[in-house]
């Protein structure tokens, strides 16, 4: 349990600096306003405050502007004068200003920016908390957040030194990288001469690997996220977990000692671990019997608090496990996992298809049904037209006709497509994809999206050996590879790519894989001749997930790090999972 890091593993950089920096910036901005005493959540309802000034801290979105405009304009109508300030985080967009201008309140409100884009959720995890990145870029093709990513990378390199080795894959990764380089050049000199703390940086687009993000998670932290939804590093455990009548908001990070030991474990190991812990705890409490006064005094003053803390954490996680077990048993998780594994391995496709069909017919869950269809589509290079039609029809009948729009979104994003009939298309396809990539202007037009984004999962899986061949039983207690995060059935594609590139220090020998990923023009390496990098820093790797990463991927890379003596640091636009991806594509609000 809880594998220790190798003794030679590098230290993690100190991210608390980021928190302090962000906090102080915000305080500074608020101090400029006099007496900001309370912050309200921006909701679409009239502000109740009778204050003479209003300050809004918002994401730069049109609908927030419209809300503010209606508020200011109704004040104007009522003949009321107040001061208004809008603080955009992480930055202001021109489209927002345009709306303020159109609504006639430009000049009535003053604007500011709070460049807060890196929230340290844990010692090794930074989140930009931009879940909208996924839909904005991968569905709409809007590049508004690329500058935000570049700014964040710039901040990191100013704080922790330059990154001597850079790798990346994906169109967005490449653009973010280029923009960041431009930025560094413009603000030349800041990082020069600094010793690098982080030896490698790896940028990866979410659409390089949709499959991993679509799988059910079975590592504890991932399972907690799938079941209870971790928000901003904390989770609300309801009464069914706390075994009391109230809910509890719990921070989940390395500081929770119990959680830290089980977070990366396959769920099947967690029970045993918690039982053992409970027995140990009992034994420690039992020691108080037969203590004399002095010993007891010592016990109470020194150990009791720690034990109580551990006791609380333990009962919480036991409660969470119990609740997960109940839910999963009810929804026949066993059968679901079996279907997913069959899809990953590519056998019994007919059976899996009818499993999905039944799922839909019984109205089990709109999001789950959608997820399974996407998994089928990506692993099979699209659904055969007959299945596509019939599953879509049944889906619309079960969950509502307006999901027609959701299907259109999924097709555009390449998540759920229909196989083009006949083999004759391969010729056209290669022509088209050549044409499309040649055109600097852009990758795809809608008409060809399904062609340009063939997933080729089966071929990639073979090339990269994603389905481990194991004789005998896969011992989940002693994982032998990253596949343990999916019960030994599948090595996450994203993590495998990272592993392979780090091993080679380049993309050399991976040409075929890169081609199959449709990323021939978007896989890059950039090494600076940097002899100042210590060997320790060269084992520290920053992985940047554009469009979100899952806890399973984080666990898998933590495992890889332990195996190879690396430490990984994660920067993601948001922590995601299959349900969040599907909801982002769904046109109908749940």
């Amino acid at each position, binding site marked *: 349990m809880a594998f220790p890091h190798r003794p030679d593993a590098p230290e993690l950089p100190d991210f608390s600096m980021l928190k*302090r920096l962000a906090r102080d910036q915000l305080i500074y901005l608020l101090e400029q306003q006099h007496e900001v005493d309370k912050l309200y959540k921006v909701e679409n309802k009239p502000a109740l405050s009778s204050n003479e000034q209003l300050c809004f801290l918002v994401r730069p979105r049109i609908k927030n502007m419209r809300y503010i405009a209606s508020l200011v304009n109704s004040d104007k109508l009522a003949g009321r004068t107040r001061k208004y300030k809008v603080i955009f985080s992480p930055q202001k967009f021109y489209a927002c200003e345009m709306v303020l201008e159109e609504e006639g309140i430009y000049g009535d409100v003053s604007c500011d920016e709070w460049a807060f884009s890196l929230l340290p959720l844990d010692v090794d995890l930074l989140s930009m908390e931009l879940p909208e990145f996924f839909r904005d870029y991968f569905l709409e093709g809007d590049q508004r957040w*690329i500058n935000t990513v570049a700014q964040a990378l710039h901040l990191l390199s100013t704080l922790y030194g330059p990154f001597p080795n850079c790798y990346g894959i994906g169109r967005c990764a490449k653009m973010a990288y280029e923009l960041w380089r431009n930025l560094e050049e413009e603000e030349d000199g800041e990082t020069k001469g*600094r010793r690098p703390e982080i030896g490698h940086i790896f940028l990866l687009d979410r659409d390089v690997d949709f499959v991993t993000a679509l799988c059910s998670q079975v590592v504890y932290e991932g399972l907690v996220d799938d079941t209870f939804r971790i928000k901003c590093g904390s989770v609300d455990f309801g009464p069914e977990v706390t075994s009391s009548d109230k809910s509890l908001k719990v921070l989940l990070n390395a500081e929770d000692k119990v959680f830290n030991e089980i977070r990366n474990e396959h769920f099947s190991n967690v029970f045993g671990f*918690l039982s053992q*812990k409970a027995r140990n705890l009992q034994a420690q409490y039992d020691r108080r019997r037969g203590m004399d006064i002095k010993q007891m005094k010592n016990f109470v003053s020194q150990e009791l608090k720690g034990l109580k803390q551990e006791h609380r954490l333990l009962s919480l996680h036991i409660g969470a496990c*119990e609740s997960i077990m109940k839910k999963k048993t009810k929804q026949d998780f066993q059968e679901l996992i079996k279907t997913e594994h069959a899809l990953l391995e590519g056998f019994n496709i007919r059976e899996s298809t009818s499993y999905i069909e039944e799922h839909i017919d019984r109205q089990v869950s709109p999001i789950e049904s959608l997820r399974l269809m996407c998994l089928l589509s990506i692993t099979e290079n699209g659904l055969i037209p007959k299945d596509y039609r019939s599953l879509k029809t049944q889906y619309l009948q079960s969950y509502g*006709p307006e999901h027609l729009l959701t299907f259109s979104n999924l097709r555009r994003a390449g998540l759920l497509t229909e196989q083009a009939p006949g083999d004759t298309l391969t010729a056209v396809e290669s022509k088209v994809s050549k044409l499309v990539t040649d055109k600097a202007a852009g990758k795809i037009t809608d008409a060809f999206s399904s062609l340009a984004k063939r997933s080729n999962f089966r071929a990639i899986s073979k090339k990269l050996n994603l389905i481990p061949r194991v004789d005998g039983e896969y011992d989940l207690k002693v994982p032998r590879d990253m596949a343990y995060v999916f*019960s030994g059935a599948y090595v996450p594609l994203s993590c495998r790519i990272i592993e392979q590139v780090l091993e080679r220090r380049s993309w050399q020998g991976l040409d075929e894989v890169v081609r199959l990923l449709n990323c021939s023009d978007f896989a890059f390496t950039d090494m600076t001749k940097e002899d100042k990098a210590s060997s320790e820093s060269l084992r520290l790797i920053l992985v940047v997930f554009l469009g979100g990463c899952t806890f399973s991927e984080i666990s898998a890379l933590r495992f890889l790090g332990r195996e190879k003596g690396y430490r990984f640091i994660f920067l993601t636009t948001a922590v995601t999972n299959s349900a969040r991806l599907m909801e982002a594509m769904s046109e109908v609000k749940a």
Partner: protein
Amino acid sequence: MNRTKGDEEEYWNSSKFKAFTFDDEDDELSQLKESKRAVNSLRDFVDDDDDDDLERVSWSGEPVGSRTRPGSFQSLSDALSDTPAKSYAPELGRPKGEYRDYSNDWSPSDTVRRLRKGKVCSLERFRSLQDKLQLLEEAVSMHDGNVITAVLIFLKRTLSKEILFRELEVRQVALRHLIHFLKEIGDQKLLLDLFRFLDRTEELALSHYREHLNIQDPDKRKEFLKTCVGLPFSAEDSAHIQDHYTLLERQIIIEANDRHLESAGQTEIFRKHPRKASILNMPLVTTLFYSCFYHYTEAEGTFSSPINLKKTFKIPDKQYVLTALAARAKLRAWNDVDALFTTKNWLGYTKKRAPIGFHRVVEILHKNNAPVQILQEYVNLVEDVDTKLNLATKFKCHDVVIDTYRDLKDRQQLLAYRSKVDKGSAEEEKIDALLSSSQIRWKN
């Protein structure tokens, strides 16, 4: 899905990774429960004072609400004093927007770079088409979506839409930004014009159809959907749109009728089972369930009858049976359930048949608390012996289990099962009688 027990065995036996089971109540969960009891028993000893440690959420867990009190304010230089680099909050005191720039001779590439930095920068001097397009191309090559959109806003204002559309057609990245921008600000008219110009008929149709989501009034929504019917969808989607319209049309009629029936209080079913929600805007399957629940026996001629829905929307047999079964079982109308699966052949013999597999039927019946006699009947119809035994054991259909072991001539299993039935019950007697029978040639 008719996956047999045999297949499952084979899958798991041949598979290389060990399955962990969520439903193996016997070991892990009970182990867990034990631990929980152990931990809870400690509560008396520890549960005294502070509820602190877990509920206190640190700064990172509570992003905005917890402003530091003025006393604890740390100046920027305090915060940075221990770091080597000093330059990462360069423009803190001077909001970027305040940088005004009245210079007129920035090149397109300089202009774009200034825009990226958030500086206010006039674009008015880019008047020739060539200049405008160069500006756009610079923005695109810099990759910043915010700047691309800023330039597009300027182009949209200063170019006729024909010219704008024509130039964007060959600039896909910029085009996608304009489309997203128009969607966000809700300029539906220009968006539709754009799709029309690009000849993207399907997107045009979908975009128009999307508007129905903003219409709350059911009649207005229905009228709007009517306008969608003729739009250039794919053949397949056209059928879905037509169905959507027809469905809402029916729902409006059913809703008016049933609301009236319910408030009149004369109809038994509505009195016994008051409606929980309106049927308007519900999916087809939900509507079918509703109709099987409240209008099961109605003749095909009425809009609310299940058969009418089935025919109008070409609902597949499987889906129909599944839904009707759930609805009738919920009402405990076992005769209707029976009738659902009874078919007569041409000689007049009756036979039980289920398009969804009897194991599913049993599960649904069990979920609706069907009595054992009913369950038993359907468990018996499950063809695969292993599945049958599994279900019978799970749902305590003792007779089925006993008879099956008898038919399998499995004395050992029967003996083992004896311990699971109540002492002195009819089942125990039955087992004893079988075990002492001399007419069965046991295989073990």
